[in-house]
């Protein structure tokens, strides 16, 4: 009887150990790990500034954003008047002129020279980060006229002809 009792004790201990190791197995199966990629993206910027240059007599101009508002008090027909301007890119991304819009009053004809659609202006500090242009106008007769010249800029690689 004593012998049988010992076997019972050993049996119980064995079962206990087996169960414990099973629990360890469950603990082990809980293994998990995480790896990660952390990215930081800093974007650049475009900052194009239009500035007035010189202009002929009887011409006044003001700049709002990327638009030049010109007013002409012309004396007679056919007189050519002009207004100079420069475009400076203060940003970190090169730009191109996507288009130039001209809207004039009273039959005034205006054209822009020096720059055109597709002209590239490099970012600040890189030549040429400034380009120069002229608005030349022909008046149909004596009188007061207005002309609005607007520039549209795009990031250099998004330019579309």
């Amino acid at each position, binding site marked *: *009887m004593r012998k*049988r*009792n010992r076997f*019972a*004790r050993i049996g*119980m*201990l064995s*079962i*206990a*150990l*087996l*169960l*414990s*190791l*099973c*629990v*360890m*197995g*469950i*603990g*082990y*199966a*809980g*293994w*998990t*790990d*995480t*790896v*990660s*990629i*952390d*990215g*930081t*993206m*800093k*974007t*650049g*910027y*475009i900052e194009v500034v239009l500035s007035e240059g010189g202009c002929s007599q009887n011409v006044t101009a003001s700049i709002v954003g990327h638009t030049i508002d010109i007013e002409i008090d012309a004396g007679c027909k056919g007189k050519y008047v002009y207004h100079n301007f420069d475009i400076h890119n203060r*940003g*970190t*991304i*090169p730009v191109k002129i996507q288009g130039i819009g001209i809207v004039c009053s009273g039959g005034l004809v205006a054209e822009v020279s020096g720059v055109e659609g597709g002209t590239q202006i*490099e*970012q600040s500090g*890189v030549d040429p980060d400034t380009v120069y242009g002229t608005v030349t106008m022909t008046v149909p007769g004596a009188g007061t006229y207005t002309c609005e010249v607007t520039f549209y800029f795009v*990031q*250099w*690689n*998004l330019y579309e002809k």
Partner: protein
Amino acid sequence: MTRLRGLKRQVRPGRWLIIALAVVVALGSLGVAYGYSSGTLKAGDMMAMACFNGPFTWVVSNDDGKVTNICSYGDIDPGDDGGGTNYDKWGDQSSNDPSETQTMGVECARYDKDVARTTAWMSSCDRKEITVLVENAYPSYYPTVFFGLKNTQSFSVKIKSIDISYDIPGLNVTFDGVAVGDVLSSGQEVIGRLGIHTEQSAHQNSTYNVKVKVELVQKEKSGCGWGWWGWWNWWGWWGCRGWC
């Protein structure tokens, strides 16, 4: 009754049951504690001590100005030659900007200017984290980061989840080469690829964050049958290697 009392006296199950339960609870607790710590101790602390053999084996950016050669794979990012054809903001620290995601070992389309730059590096000693820095990005800039992910464990692991998050709508982040459900056998390495495409809706002069989290779990399921094998596989191997 006398016979039953005699039997009780002989076996005395109460005392032994308590001892057995105590052993079960003690070893069970050890097992649970082991299970909890293994996630960090094994892959983190132990590797941190050695500083090698982590899950990320290498990382390469295709716009950091150098073509990187990884043994057995060759040149990872051909075309990343440090040049800037019509503009070279970063010198040899970056190349003409990629305009599409790159396939490993194959040149990709690039713009003729080096305006933006992307660098990537292993940011922790245990090689569990990669940091990517994109500078002076603009819409249509499309750098690619390649990396090696290796199962350094002695057993197979499975990709349980991949969580990609970023705080900008319109940013297009692609992640491939590693997919949920993939199983990596012990020692197996896979090549992952992260593409970050800046889209038109990105704001200028801003900082954005992108995070990719990959969760790895042991492939095999647990259970009493697995317990012995799991115990030996982990404790026998790592225990002996680490401490014996």
